[in-house]
């Protein structure tokens, strides 16, 4: 350079860009009526609908709504993470949003931090609404003592695994519609065989084994330990809540999901 270069202004810090992205992602989600209804309200409608129709006693003083809390929160977490990520990232890839972002000096990590912020906010909102409806409409018993801690780590691990898988799955779809058409049935089937909608001991044994490969089953089982009395642990396949296995399997799925993301994530359509 022959001319004197003007002093170079520093690039914004990664933290600042992450905050911007978090704000963008929250607005993108909560301003879109379809995603709010589909992701946030669908589990609430499930709880109200099934809770009103199914009214049987599972023993130990547990009625259906009390049993279903663990299941419907599982469905809420899977919707906020796996389905939400797969569908919206596929959409952002097919409409050029990702390509445009990749052409800016935005640190790539900030995009994912923004997505995580969105998942955290939507998951929290879903859980709060479901607990409120559960308590106010069905009078369910809230967890007590150390169950809250279990609730927290199972939710965090489960949401993390499903978020990473959702980001990975988004690369398989051509656009948000095909992502929705693929991932929604898969999520529903996994939820059915994982004891989300009916007691897990009513699921045929071989289907239980299939379900045990996937994270949804372990997420639901971990949450059952939070919402059900320990006497019902006897109805689980192992006769206990297996919280150690829950942590290991969900942790493994986080690793698998992360590896898949790193290997498959694309910023533009092929």
């Amino acid at each position, binding site marked *: 350079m022959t001319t004197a270069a003007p002093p*170079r*202004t*520093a*690039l*914004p810090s990664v933290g*600042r*860009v992450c905050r*911007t*992205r978090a*704000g*963008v992602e929250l*607005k*993108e989600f909560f*301003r*879109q009526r379809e995603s709010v209804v589909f992701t946030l309200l669908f589990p609430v409608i499930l709880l109200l609908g099934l809770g009103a129709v199914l009214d049987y006693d599972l023993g130990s003083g547990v009625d259906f709504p009390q049993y279903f809390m663990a299941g419907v929160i599982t469905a809420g977490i899977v919707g906020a993470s796996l389905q939400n990520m797969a569908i919206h990232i596929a*959409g*952002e890839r097919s*409409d*050029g*949003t990702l*390509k*445009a972002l*990749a*052409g*800016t*000096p*935005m*640190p790539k990590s900030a995009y994912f931090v923004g997505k995580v912020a969105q998942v955290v906010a939507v998951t929290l909102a879903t859980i709060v609404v479901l607990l409120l409806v559960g308590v106010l409409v069905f009078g369910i018993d809230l967890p007590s003592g150390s169950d809250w801690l279990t609730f927290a780590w199972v939710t965090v691990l489960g949401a993390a695994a499903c978020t990473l898988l959702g980001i990975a799955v988004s690369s398989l779809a051509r656009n948000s519609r095909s992502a929705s058409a693929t991932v929604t049935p898969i999520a529903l089937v996994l939820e059915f065989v994982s004891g989300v909608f009916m007691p897990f001991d009513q699921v045929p044994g071989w289907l239980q084994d299939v379900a045990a490969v996937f994270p949804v089953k372990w997420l639901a089982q971990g949450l059952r330990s939070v919402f059900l009395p320990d006497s019902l642990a006897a109805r689980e396949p192992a006769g206990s809540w297996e919280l150690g296995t829950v942590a290991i399997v969900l942790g493994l799925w986080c690793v698998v999901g992360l590896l898949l993301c790193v290997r498959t994530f694309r910023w*533009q359509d092929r």
Partner: protein
Amino acid sequence: MQKDHLLPTTRELAAGPGRRPTEPDPEAAISIRGLVKRYGERAAVDGLDLDIRRGEIFALLGPNGAGKTTTVEICEGYRGRDGGEVRVLGVDPAKGGRRWKADLGIVLQSGAGDSQLSVRELLTAQASYFADPRDPDEVLELVGLTEKGGARGRTLSGGQRRRLDVALGIVGRPKLLFLDEPTTGFDPEARRQFWALIRSLRELGTTMLLTTHYLDEAEELADRVGVIARGRLAEVAVPTALGGRGTAPAVVSWTEHGTRRTAETTTPTAFVTELAARFPGEVPDLAVNRPTLEDVYLTMIGDRS
């Protein structure tokens, strides 16, 4: 690197004083030497050389599949290359980091996609990624979207959306702006407004690489045009001189005794003066035409495809 396929114009441009033509010019906005990009067996770009000076508007023309988009996307850092050297603002795009990207503005063909954010929110978010951004409100003013600042992106018309794309492209105060077919789908009035916007950006000193299918657009805006055909740069020239337009014979036409007459001449001024002497007043239906940019462009790509 094999250079014998290069046309003289390109070779002259490539070789600065005291510099071998195989080395890219780090002072140029964009400098490309012997660029090769293959998709499978096919070479989409096959030994392309190009220099774009700082401060100019350069239009890249060429039919679909000629390697235009591939070349531009390699410069933008979106694609890797299989051979040759590329410097964009002195940096190899394959190694360009955040600091390098902060000096670029990219307006993609596809636009920015759907968003729930307002126009102003989108610009503010985009500005926050850059080191020295422009004020989003000033940018809105510049692209004529001030009144739409509060509107959601998807409520905009096609022309307004494209202006938003440009706003997003320039809010980072780029030294180099890529414009990929910016006016496709515009009505004539929207295109003229858009051209005025591009000219005002030029006055701010922004270098621009424009790809377009509209030859009138290239002629209107560009300081120089380059024609890509079959993965190579066929010619680079100012729009009025491309394909020997400037020195090609002019065609004079007029009506005499009720019939249309035409004549080719290399001295149209003298010819018209002579013609004027033969008529008492105006020469009926007088027209002097040179080959249009479209004529020479079609000849150029026709020769090679």
